[in-house]
């Protein structure tokens, strides 16, 4: 039984995160905040949805 504990533990944690991620992405953004973004320019990955020019390159591969 003791050997199984780590696996159960990881699966449990992973599921917790998975559920949180899923629920969070299902929850709609509150009214008036739809177009708010963090506008992070720390790196130049334009496929990140927080990058200011994300909208321009939407759907394009980098």
């Amino acid at each position, binding site marked *: 039984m*003791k050997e199984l*504990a*780590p696996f159960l*533990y*990881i699966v449990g*944690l*992973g599921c*917790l*995160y998975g559920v*949180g*991620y899923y*629920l*969070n992405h299902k*929850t*709609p*953004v*509150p*009214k*008036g*905040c739809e177009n*708010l*973004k*963090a*506008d*992070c*320019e*720390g*790196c130049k990955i334009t496929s990140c*949805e*927080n990058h200011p020019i994300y909208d321009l390159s939407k759907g394009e591969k980098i």
Partner: protein
Amino acid sequence: MLGNLFSLFLTACIIDNIILSKFFGMCPFLGVSKKVSSAVGMGLAVIFVIVGASILTYGLYYLVLVPLELEYMDLITFILVIAAFVQFVEMFIKKNSPSLYKSLGIYLPLITTNCAVLYVAQQNIANGYNFAEMLVYSVAVPAGFTLTLCIMATIRERLEFANTPESYKGNPITLVVAALMAIAFTGLAGLV
């Protein structure tokens, strides 16, 4: 006791400043330091997440991992707990407080993969802190982060009007400013 905690706070917040001497959290430091308002929002979000995630990971480590002898799972536990915590917080804020979401919630997605959070969770264990020290440390580090971020944002608002060489525009000039700030902060090293 209290004196110890105070010096721990000063060390973690200013002398060993997480950005200027440990370099963690560079991405938001470069990315969200353009406006003071966003710097404050980001800073508060980071303080909130680091304190919450530190308490959770600290509890999990000593109450679950140590009794089960699973200490080698620390890293994967920390990152999953942090990530899950951020998701649940974001969902909670979205549902309950649109105004809080406006000022703080939009920065939460940037925090999941913020090295500062993982670093604090790990240092709490690596340094063998007790609960009080852990709490002080987990407040002090993000406080130092917020301080640096806000100082940087005020400088960058002025920098917009400066005559920066073309190739230094954007991140390079920010890093030069950070270098000067780092010199200033090293000057405080004798404080404690």
